[in-house]
């Protein structure tokens, strides 16, 4: 058998599975309303220094209202799971809220280009990073969701991603094959935007769920924003569609159009104009400061943010683009 290697980095976030069992044992699992406000959820459930995970896919089904509120409340030294983190990463870096990140994909906004501000934060070491991949972080959530300390897989080996990770190689007890072992990742707080939830936190998501099934089950605390609150009866009438059960959830907030300027599948497309404006604003520090003041710091809540960026008229257009009745981009 060849030598088994280890990544050279330290784990940013790891809880022993027995410690997590004690935590989940004590977590209140009664069927009680979790309704609250964005501001209270951020104040009460996210503390400086904690490690957070954001649902969706960077610019798709993202919990924008909560991300903005984290910036507004000037949370500091947060850790982040950077599982295709695009606009979400951009927001948190703009607010200087995070100082470390397990990364798969950061800085970029996919086909839209790169965030110069986010890039600078990583290049200058303001945000410390450890390397992973999209699958690796999803498997780390999955291990946590399953209640095991690690999962084996077959990627990442032989590359510098492994070298600058905190993964380990192991030998398969049945085949003798070399495998990579991914340690469980339990974020302190998960934040997910969904299509529907009841007041207790029983949630449905339409379309791809990315890694939210796993992340919801991995997180110690879970904040849900939802396009709409639905009666529990409608959940009970179709329990097959429940993706997140209530006992995982700590806060539920109804935020219509809550993924704006991100895409909400089947409902509204991303606001490419606004995302482009954001990327442009980053190029000049003074202009970016004004941009953030205008869009986040001097804004009372999510309604106002939507209002100053076009309000109902803009939302209607994004709905039309999503439904292919109007040309986008």
């Amino acid at each position: 058998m060849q030598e088994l290697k280890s990544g050279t980095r330290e784990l940013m976030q790891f809880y022993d599975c027995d410690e997590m069992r004690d935590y989940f044992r004590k977590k209140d699992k009664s069927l009680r309303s979790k309704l609250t406000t964005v501001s209270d959820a951020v104040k009460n459930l996210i503390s400086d220094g904690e490690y957070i995970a954001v649902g969706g896919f960077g610019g798709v089904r993202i919990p924008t209202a909560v991300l903005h509120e984290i910036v507004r409340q000037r949370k500091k030294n947060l850790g982040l799971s950077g599982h295709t983190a695009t606009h979400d990463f951009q927001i948190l870096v703009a607010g200087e809220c995070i100082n470390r990140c397990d990364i798969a994909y950061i800085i970029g906004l996919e086909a839209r280009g790169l965030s110069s501000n986010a890039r600078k934060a990583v290049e200058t070491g303001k945000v410390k990073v450890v390397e992973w991949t999209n699958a690796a972080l999803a498997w780390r959530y999955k291990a946590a969701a399953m209640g095991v300390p690690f999962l084996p897989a077959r990627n990442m080996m032989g590359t510098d991603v492994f070298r600058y990770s905190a993964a380990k190689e192991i030998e398969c007890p049945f085949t003798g094959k070399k495998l990579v072992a991914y340690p469980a990742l339990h974020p302190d707080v998960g934040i997910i935007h969904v299509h529907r939830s009841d007041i207790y936190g029983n949630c449905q998501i339409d379309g791809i769920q990315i890694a939210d099934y796993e992340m919801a089950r991995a997180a110690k605390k879970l904040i849900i924003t939802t396009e709409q609150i639905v009666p529990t009866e409608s959940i009970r009438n179709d329990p097959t569609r429940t993706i997140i059960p209530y006992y995982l959830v700590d806060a539920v907030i109804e935020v219509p159009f809550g993924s704006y300027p991100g895409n909400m599948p089947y409902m509204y497309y991303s606001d490419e104009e606004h995302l482009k404006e954001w990327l442009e604003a980053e190029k000049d520090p003074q202009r970016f400061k004004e941009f953030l003041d205008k869009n986040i710091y001097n804004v009372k809540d999510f309604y106002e943010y939507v209002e100053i960026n076009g309000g109902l008229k803009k939302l209607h257009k994004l709905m039309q683009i999503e439904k292919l009745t109007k040309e986008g981009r």
Partner: protein
Amino acid sequence: MADYNSMELMICVASRFLENGATVVVGTGAPCAAAMLAQKMHAPNLMAFFEAGAFAPILPTMPISVGDSRTFHKALMASGMLETMEACQKGMVDYCFLGGAQIDMYGNLNSSMIGIDYEHPKVRFPGSGGANDLASLTWRTMVITPQDSRRFVEKVDFITSPGYLTGKGAREKAGLPKGSGPYKVVTNIGVLGYDEETCRMRIESVHPGYSVEDIKKNTGFELLLAKKITETAKPTEEELRVLREQVDPYKYIIGRG
């Protein structure tokens, strides 16, 4: 004779490698266009996945994100990221398409950083995303990229996605699945493949109007030569018509060529 730009050429050439009945994980941009073109030309039964969880969609327009709603428009399954990744890990997926800031003679790709000190990169890029996963777990990695010697380098600063690593047998020795690895690199000048014995990159065809010398000049390492180097067949009028009218009518991708 049809006229075309280099992006159109790359998309047409790449699409021809995707045979009917194959499975492919595509990203946004040129790979997506190549897969759509293949489906409309010769491979109606090419099945496309997206890494965020979409299976076999009917793409209405080009997605901006590999997770946006376009990727599962009228899909046969809208699942999760691990559904795609585990399908790859099980050997279900024939092809993936990747890019990068640097590629070396073994097809190793760098999309993480430029520089030699990990703590102090000269330039930081987004990182693997799903690229390492797809390069590790699908059978054949395809690359579509413009070719120049700053991109085609002797040694990549950081191996983000595994090619053949250090040569024949190195993937298997590292623990990656047997028989997988880089397949073709489609550039604006030609098509490169890999020598079976050494796993080093070689010239396989040269695009019309270019020479083997042009390819060598734009490569920062020594390229091997296939036994028979052909001239790449030009995009046909039909290919161009379908690409322009049906695949990318708003020129999101081919407008960049």
